[in-house]
């Protein structure tokens, strides 16, 4: 009871802060913008059935609209708060509105390729989603996975090399998950069999993969680039009908095979974790391994298997960096995506849905800073890069309801030790 009331107080405080920020946006971006210039939003990427024309909106009007929408979101959140329901929807609307109100203001007199912005956001979110699914599988089974970064990088490296040597992207796609799983086997062996501290272990594995790929990159991929690092990449496949829906089509259904595989994996994990025998058992070993053992579940075998599957998922995500986009491998090209994926997992409260939404938000924020600097808006790009971390701190501090990791996350299990 006591805890609830503290959490509720925090939610209320957060709603008030959001409301104040929206009011500020209304004053500064809406009414404070005396420029009569407009912002043009591009809505077309090229393959749709109906070619929508660019939308031109006066900047101050756009800002005002979104700030008001944000206030509405706050009101909605407060209503749900009063009804003792989750105010997450209201909070989301309010937060996103502030962002859009800001974009309208920042891009006064400029052209914003809106569809491109969203599509780019998804593209940047793809490895984050793969990574967070890997983290989800591990942590729901009770193994902390800090090595997502290493798994992604291993996948990226292996797929580029194999695809270069064999000139077959498909082989690259097959080898990537195996490389990720190899990192997982190390993680699982030391964490589950020998009880090594999982945070330290994950960190060490990242350093190992960084070192190994750096070394091979320098000694092999750079000197013999034409043989080792000139991978072909997958081309986009537009799904019939779906791919031609305006706005949504080009964003979601004109992608490479890796993205379609991601949809399938996300669906399988979301369903499997909560609707199947495997999911129930996975969650049980992540929450209370002794209890799972006492009903005849082989805790460590299940954990091992799930960690390896997680490696397969993250490894496949790594392929997206190379054969899923540019083709060739670049030094340390994952650039911290694994850590942002981990942040997405935590921000998403260890649920598949939450993690995906968080990954999309982070991807969008990342892309936004790129787009803004291209069109010449002077917002320091570092500011936008902070978004994932600030969001994670907000999530962990309990501002948007209770965040609780699986109870046995990172806890070594050995039958003898608990008795």
């Amino acid at each position, binding site marked *: 009871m006591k805890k609830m009331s503290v959490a509720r107080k925090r939610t209320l405080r957060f709603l008030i802060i959001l409301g104040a920020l929206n009011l500020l946006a209304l004053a500064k971006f809406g009414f404070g913008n005396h420029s009569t210039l407009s912002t043009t939003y591009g809505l077309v990427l090229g393959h749709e059935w109906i070619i929508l024309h660019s939308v031109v909106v006066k900047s101050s009007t756009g800002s005002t609209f979104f700030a008001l929408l944000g206030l509405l979101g706050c009101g909605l959140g407060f209503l749900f708060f009063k009804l003792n329901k989750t105010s997450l929807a209201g909070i989301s609307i309010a937060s996103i509105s502030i962002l859009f109100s800001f974009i309208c203001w920042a891009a006064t007199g400029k052209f914003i390729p809106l569809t491109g912005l969203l599509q780019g956001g998804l593209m940047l979110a793809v490895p984050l989603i793969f990574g967070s699914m890997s983290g989800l599988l591990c942590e729901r089974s009770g193994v902390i996975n800090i090595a997502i970064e290493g798994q992604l990088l291993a996948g990226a490296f292996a797929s580029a090399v194999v695809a270069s040597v064999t000139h077959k992207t498909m082989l690259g796609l097959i080898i990537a998950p195996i490389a990720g799983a190899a990192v997982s086997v190390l993680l699982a062996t030391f964490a589950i069999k020998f009880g090594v501290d999982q945070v330290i272990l994950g960190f060490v594995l990242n350093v190992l993969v960084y070192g190994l790929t750096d070394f091979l990159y320098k000694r092999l991929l750079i000197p013999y680039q034409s043989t080792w690092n000139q991978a072909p990449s997958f081309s986009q496949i537009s799904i019939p009908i779906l791919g031609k829906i305006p706005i949504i089509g080009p964003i979601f259904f004109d992608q490479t095979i890796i993205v379609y595989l991601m949809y399938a994996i996300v669906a399988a994990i979301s*369903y499997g974790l909560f609707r199947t025998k495997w999911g129930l*058992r996975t969650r*049980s070993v992540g929450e209370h391994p002794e209890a*799972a*053992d006492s*009903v005849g579940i082989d805790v460590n075998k299940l954990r091992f298997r799930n960690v390896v599957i997680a490696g397969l998922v993250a490894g496949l995500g790594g392929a997206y960096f190379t054969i899923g986009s540019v083709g060739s491998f670049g030094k340390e090209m994952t650039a911290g995506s694994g850590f942002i994926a981990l942040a997405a997992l935590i921000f998403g409260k260890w649920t598949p849905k939450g993690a995906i939404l968080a990954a999309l938000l982070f991807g969008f924020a990342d892309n936004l800073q790129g787009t803004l600097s291209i069109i010449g808006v002077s917002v320091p790009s570092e500011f936008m890069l902070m978004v994932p971390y600030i969001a994670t701190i907000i999530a962990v501090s309990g501002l948007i309801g209770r965040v609780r990791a699986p109870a046995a996350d990172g806890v070594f299990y050995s039958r003898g030790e608990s*008795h």
Partner: protein
Amino acid sequence: MSLELRGVTKTFGSLVANDNINLKVDDGEIHAILGENGAGKSTLMNIVYGLVQPDSGEFLVDGNPVTIHQPADALAVGIGMVHQHFMLIPVFSVLENIILGHEQSTKIGSLESSAAREKILKLASEFGFHIDPDAIVENLSVGVQQRVEILKALMYDAKILILDEPTAVLTPQETDEFIEIMKKLRASGTAIIFISHKLREVKAVADKITVIRQGKVVAIADPKSTQEELASLMVGRPVNLTEKKTIHHDNAVVVKVSELNIADEVGRPLVSNINFEIHKGEILAIAGVQGNGQTELANAMVNLHKNVHGSILLDGQEIVGLSVNKSLHSGIAYVPESRELDGLIGKFSIAENLILDTHHEQPFAKGIFMSNKAVEEEAQKKVVEFDIRTQSIDAPVSSLSGGNKQKVVLARELSRPVRLVVACQPTRGLDVGAIEFVHKRILEEREAGRAVLLFSTELDEVMTLADRIAVMYKGEILSIVDASATREQIGLLMAGVKS
């Protein structure tokens, strides 16, 4: 179904946990296994349930030898177990907890639980449990969680049910209900192995009693034996359970609590309108079901709680609002509810734990340095005085048994000049020998003229020690009665019935 164990032996290093144990449990019998903490009861039951592998020994079910290497094997032959620490997943629903490990899937791979749900409801109504299969386990009371554990075993046709210290976590009322459940189970033909060190309960329900001491079966006792006889078998020497009370008459008031109110951080009342006095050489026991404000009141006595309003006078001096350090040094000994959590620092040595409160004072501190010699001397002295059984004073306190840990807490708290002893659940989880020691020590403090404020949910303990008994219910003291009050009177007050 009957179960027989022959020659079960298990050693952990040099410790013989079970030494050639023979045990026979018959169909529809409640077979109690009585022994002190550490006697080897739990190890034996973990062996039967397949969680621990024995060095030697065999199992016979209905006369046929069986092998049990893991819990699944035990379940397969019809042995179910309710563990002392529940094997329930707090964030799962009752249904999910019960089907875990026995899940049925549909053709497309999703969980199929409607048959299980029906069976749960049927079993629950048979035994008169009110259980919602969709309730989340962490929201249920401990008593109800235990019923979920029992259902879990019954769901998969356990014919022999092992109950490991099932009443340790229950309130007196829940314990009574639990004893009724055991009787119902027996009536339905289930054999029960009931592990306990609580004599009253064992006597109330057992058909046969096997007493284990230091890993050996020392006797098969008759439930009609007296509590003293059973206790002596368990401890291995004569035990005098009911302490003699010598009556003190001294009217000087040591503690006067008036109009004390405690609120939580958002201002809701936790404890309201507390008034009592304790005289020199008097034990005032605060009885009541766990969670009725006792913890908060106890914490308030040494200013460990914020939001306390009212007055606590210790020999006429106001102590509300002092720091914890000053409260302790004004003459209060404080034995907290949880030894492991609040009373001791597990990784620190026994010697270090003994001076936690006075480490900054002479002779333990000299300027900014610690005097290890003084600390050691103090520890050697206390280990003898309080009979703390340990290999070394440098051993981490977490390596001690519960009883010895409590002795360390007592030794430290009683080393300061004391006028009031606040003891919270001082014997929770202790064995008979340690309980005897703690009770003796508390009575010695009383005889030395100190006021004692005893918080206990154990009615037996309250009745044995107290001069007066205050019963707390929903944050208030319902009534303060004399020690001559009957169990029934106090039981009613504990349930909130004010006559």
